[in-house]
């Protein structure tokens, strides 16, 4: 048995009168009220109770595992209702994933600090963190009523994730030091993962969305598209007019983050709601209905989810989502409208739309991380950027207060990088160094570095006579706030004689330039504020696309020295330390190791930050209950999933 006691208090509000008048979705919700009362005794949704009584569905006890996951809810809810959310035109499959698809072996707690049981009831880890034994729930079922066992996990890992025709290289959460782990069946409900080297981070990885391969594929269904189990798969491929079995397999069974995961209504899943109207190219909405075999119950033993249906409307333009929010046609939504700039509009319309705001704690560390390319192809530029004093001067030369006031509405504080304040690993030196506005000192440093000469426009000249000038790549469509912030930085730096170009470019070009190491500098939000272990790209060159201050170093690290460029000693030390931390299960010890990493990062001062990543927010209809008022906003903690939407309910 596992528990979850973290759903904080929230105010309860009566049903808004506008609610009565709203569209048909609301009407469906209301029509379910009379039945709901009787449902509470049956401990299952009235519609399911009816089907079970008619013999069309097995009884509740047979559907739910003998050992279900018990969710300690703040308030025992009532069944019924239809929850409305919005998706953007395309490639927004993760909008569905975040709501329903987080049924991995383990899950995160609300604070994003600890891993809790989920599909696995409990687990054991051997002392050197190479073997993980998961104990599953007896009698647990897929959404089509077929049993879920250790075989499914072994099939998913050994036959699918590690199949080179399906995945050219195995998904990285199950890989450590270039070698994929092995899943072995111990008995029907016990499965063991074995790794060649210590991998303490494996548990945390399994709680993230990318770590859900073990529970993704139902063997009894997906094996029919797999040549190992179905020799006739070639005929199926031909009948579907496809080129190979891998495509067919993905069409039918999906993958973690591709649209076709939500495109097949026949696929069995472990999710609280299952697809009724799929997410396809022509769809204008996606509808999901409750999974009658869902394996979680509330503290009173009622089967979850409380809410009958999820309706995702698909808008081509994000603005129409805003409109839906303001006019009260979304029940809970933070995706696509959570930018700070929308907050005044959304808070002014709270009354009209009948919603409240929920706070989303940004999991990132830095809102606008400036990455100067320390491995620039041009030797002169490289020399300039690689000098810590130069970076320090730039950092001292910007007026963070003005940027925060203007662009971030005063909702942040000067910051460099590192775990967020309040995180047990918060590192003041790393976060706060050189954040004062001191143009005098900045000028003095630059003078000393040999950039004392200036041209007619007051811009400093390098010893070779070139202007001190570089372009900072930014994607205006993705992060308009970063463009605004950079425009201010440009002015600040002009004061200390440094000229920049705010290089607004298209997103694909941004990536291509990074991949080719063509950029002078780039900005991006700096991650690792709440999840320093999962995304340490700013603490050491670890991410071949994200560590934009030295991508060749990251390539060197990832390829174990085969590709890229050899990094300096400080980086190498950090890489070693990080590997060590990844293999350390004891959080105390891991923290000590990471402290050394942060010390080295602070000393190297590779990235220049502006301010602490700003918290986002979401809207939540007043009658939607059991929604925590505050939760993280992250990809590794795919909000609102770990806040458990299956225990949200509509108050009468």
């Amino acid at each position, binding site marked *: 048995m596992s528990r979850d006691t973290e759903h904080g208090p929230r105010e309860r509000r009566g049903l808004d009168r506008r609610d009565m*008048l709203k*569209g*048909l*979705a609301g009407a469906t919700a209301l029509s379910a009220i009379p039945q709901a009362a009787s449902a509470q005794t049956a401990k299952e949704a009235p519609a399911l109770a009816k089907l079970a009584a008619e013999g069309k569905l097995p009884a509740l006890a047979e559907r739910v595992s003998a050992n279900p996951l018990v969710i300690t809810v703040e308030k025992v809810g009532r069944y019924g209702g239809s929850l409305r959310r919005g998706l953007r*035109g*395309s*490639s927004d499959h*993760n*909008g569905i994933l975040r709501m329903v698809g987080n049924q991995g072996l383990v899950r995160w707690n609300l604070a994003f600090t600890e891993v809790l049981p989920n599909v696995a009831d409990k687990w054991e880890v051997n002392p050197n963190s190479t073997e993980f034994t998961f104990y599953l729930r007896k009698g647990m079922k897929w959404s089509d009523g077929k049993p879920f066992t250790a075989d499914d996990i072994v099939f998913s890992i050994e036959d699918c994730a590690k199949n080179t025709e399906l*995945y*050219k290289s*195995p*998904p*990285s959460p199950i890989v450590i030091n270039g070698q994929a782990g092995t899943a072995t069946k111990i008995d029907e409900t016990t499965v063991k993962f074995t790794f060649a080297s210590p991998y303490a981070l494996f548990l945390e990885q399994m709680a993230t*969305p*990318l770590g859900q391969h073990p529970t993704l594929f139902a063997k009894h269904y997906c094996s029919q598209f797999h040549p190992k189990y179905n020799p006739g798969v070639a005929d199926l491929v031909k009948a579907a*007019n*496809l080129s190979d079995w*891998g*495509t067919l397999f*993905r*069409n039918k069974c999906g993958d*973690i*983050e*591709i649209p*076709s995961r939500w*495109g097949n209504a026949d696929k069995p899943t472990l999710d609280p709601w299952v697809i009724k*109207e799929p997410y*396809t*190219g*022509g769809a*204008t909405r996606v509808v999901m209905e409750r999974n009658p075999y869902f394996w979680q119950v509330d503290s009173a033993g009622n089967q979850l989810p409380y809410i009958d249906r999820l309706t995702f409307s*698909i*808008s*081509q*333009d994000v*603005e*129409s989502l805003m*409109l*839906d929010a*303001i*006019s009260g*046609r979304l029940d809970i939504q933070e995706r*696509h409208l959570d930018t700070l700039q929308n907050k005044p509009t959304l808070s002014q*319309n709270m009354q009209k739309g009948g919603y409240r705001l929920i706070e989303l704690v940004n999991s*990132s560390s830095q809102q606008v991380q400036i990455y100067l390319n320390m491995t620039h192809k041009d030797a002169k530029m490289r020399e300039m950027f690689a000098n810590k004093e130069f970076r320090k001067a730039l950092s001292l030369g910007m007026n963070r207060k003005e940027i925060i006031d203007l662009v971030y509405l005063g909702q942040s504080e000067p910051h460099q990088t590192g775990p967020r304040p309040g995180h047990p690993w918060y590192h003041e030196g790393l976060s706060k160094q050189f954040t004062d506005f001191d143009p005098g000192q900045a000028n003095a440093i630059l003078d000393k570095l040999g950039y004392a000469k200036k041209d007619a426009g007051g811009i400093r000249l390098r010893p070779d006579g070139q202007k001190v000038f570089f372009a900072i790549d930014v*994607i205006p469509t*993705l992060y308009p706030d970063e463009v605004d912030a950079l425009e201010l930085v440009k002015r600040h730096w002009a004061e200390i004689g440094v000229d920049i170009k705010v290089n607004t470019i*298209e*997103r*694909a*070009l*941004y*990536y*291509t*330039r990074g991949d080719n190491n063509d950029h002078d500098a780039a900005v991006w939000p700096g*991650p690792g504020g709440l999840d320093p272990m999962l995304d340490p790209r700013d603490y050491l060159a670890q991410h071949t*696309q994200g560590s934009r201050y030295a991508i060749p170093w990251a390539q060197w690290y990832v390829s174990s020295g085969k590709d890229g460029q050899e990094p300096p000693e400080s980086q190498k030390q950090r890489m070693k330390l990080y590997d060590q931390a990844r293999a350390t299960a004891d959080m105390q010890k891991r923290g000590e190791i990471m402290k050394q990493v942060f010390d080295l990062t602070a000393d190297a001062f590779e990235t220049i930050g502006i301010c602490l990543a700003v918290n986002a927010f979401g809207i939540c209809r007043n009658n939607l209950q059991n929604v925590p008022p505050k939760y993280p*906003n992250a*990809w590794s903690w795919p909000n609102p999933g770990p806040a458990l939407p299956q225990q949200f309910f509509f108050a009468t």
Partner: protein
Amino acid sequence: MLRFIVKRLLWMVPSLIVVSFLAFVLIQLPPGDFVTTYIATLAASNEVVDQNTAADLRARFGLDRPMIVQYFKWISGIVLRGDFGLSFEWQQPVSDLIWERMALTLVLTFSTLLATWGIALPIGVFSAVKKYSIGDYVVTFFSFLGLAIPSFLLALVLMYVAAVEFGQEVGGLFSEQYLTAPWSIGKVIDLLQHLWIPVIILAVSGTASLIRVMRANMLDELNRPYVTTARAKGLSEFHLLVKYPVRLALNPFISTISWLLPNLVSGSIIVAIVLSLPTAGPLLLQSLMSQDMYLAGAFVLLICALTLIGSLISDILLALVDPRIRLE
């Protein structure tokens, strides 16, 4: 005439081949490929693609091979098997995706066309005949106003007013209840109830130019000697107008047919995006933006073919309406 048509039809084949290749090159011209844009899209929601998966995707879609190889793979599928390939993004056959949206696109475009011509032609004639009257100034002013307001702005403001002030839903073409319902009288009525908003927005910007062109052409014709002759012969003013000047003034209209047909697919993209209409436009734009090669390529080919057919039709019509034009 027949020879002419056959000749033109045969000419379409090389044109289409050249266009298909050019389209393929053009779509790939922007830096990056489908996988980079896919990664970037997810990044917008702070989502990360597994680094191993990215390389895997490229190989699976054949993006790691030279462009010419990709092109031949695509074009041979079309020519040999009539297979337009799979959309990278949706993993669904391209032809299904396009046809799924075509019906509603046609409905929207033709309604808009009817509305536009229905408004523009009579007003254009009126405004030419009653030149410099108060009526002429009024319709001229309003048609210019319609032309001048960017349609996406109009759409957005209308949506806001309807949603916030009147609590009405404006996006889409169907209400919630009819979305997946089979076709019925109720569904058609529901469609009409939703259709008028986009049709008006689109017609507002379209009518002005048609009125102006119609008026200009009419004025050219009205002063011709044959009009005076006809009037002298005692033909009623209405007959006189309809019989010759209007017919001749339509000549440039017919030339426009050649780009009217492709507009069925590629027109009204922006309004469709703002209003979340399930038409082909947003899908086309999306496929181009995300470099979903096969989907975008098929769209470009379709548009191209429609243009070629459209210009053939307009040439034939030109000859029919105006006997002075000979095709050979």
